[in-house]
């Protein structure tokens, strides 16, 4: 399997955030979802950089919705995970599970 077919850590996280948000997946909500669930501070630029990369790979599709007043009349860009994206997630999960088999991960206190 080519190297590019595996997901990077942040790509993995973004795809899972898109699946969690479903029809509400747009930039602001994706950023907040990742921040709330991972506890790490995320820049909007980092989210969009990853979204662009996984869109180019064909894992997600995107479209612009109508402008809304709470955004100063600007439109939201929504994202949806495609079948290729789900397959990529499954591949990565399986690879991680296989790597994890037979080892016990525990934080050493020694």
């Amino acid at each position: 399997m080519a190297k590019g077919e595996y997901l990077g850590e942040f790509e993995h996280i973004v795809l899972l955030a898109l699946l969690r948000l479903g029809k509400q997946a747009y930039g602001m909500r994706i950023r907040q979802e990742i921040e709330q669930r991972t506890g790490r501070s995320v820049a909007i630029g980092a989210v969009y950089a990853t979204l662009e990369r996984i869109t180019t790979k064909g894992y997600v599709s995107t479209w612009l919705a109508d402008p809304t007043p709470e955004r100063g009349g600007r439109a939201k860009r929504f994202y949806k995970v495609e079948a290729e994206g789900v397959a990529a997630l499954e591949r990565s999960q399986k690879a991680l599970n296989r790597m994890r088999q037979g080892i016990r991960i525990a934080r050493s206190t020694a």
Partner: protein
Amino acid sequence: MNRTPPRFAALLLKLVVPDEEQESIPGDLAEEFATAKRSNLWYWRQVMSSIGYLAWKSFARNGFAVFAGAAVMLIALVLTGTGVRTLLPRIPHTQSLEFAFTVAVLGFGVLSAAVAGYVTARFVGRAHLPTLLFLGVFLVAISSYWLHSGVGTTAPMWYRGALILLVLPCALFGGRLQTRQVKSA
């Protein structure tokens, strides 16, 4: 929308965001700033931590404009450099004449920046800050080194300082001039 983001940070973001994300990224930040009652510092942090990627993306999308702008600046520099190398040894080396000559070279430099800004805006469709910033650094670096290297003198500090300060505003002015012409046509 009740709260508006810090004006200068919002302007900076608008200048570096690629055309296709002009709605989504500023809109996302404006919405979160207003609805989640984020601080000005939060907004600034978001802009500053995203600016590198956004500027690079914008810059990469406008390769032809960068090429055209750089070509204009290079032609201007070759013309100026040839003039300096030919004329400077012939004129008497009085302080006032050298000063006038350096001012003239500086004027030509900022004029070429304005023309480069005009040319890039012609291709990009707006005064595009990342592209102009690149061209500005290109002009200042080459001009400061090459322009004076062949005549045995180095550019005075005030010339370099003035060039650094004036290049970007002049390039932006050239870009605005072009877009204003397009709008009024």
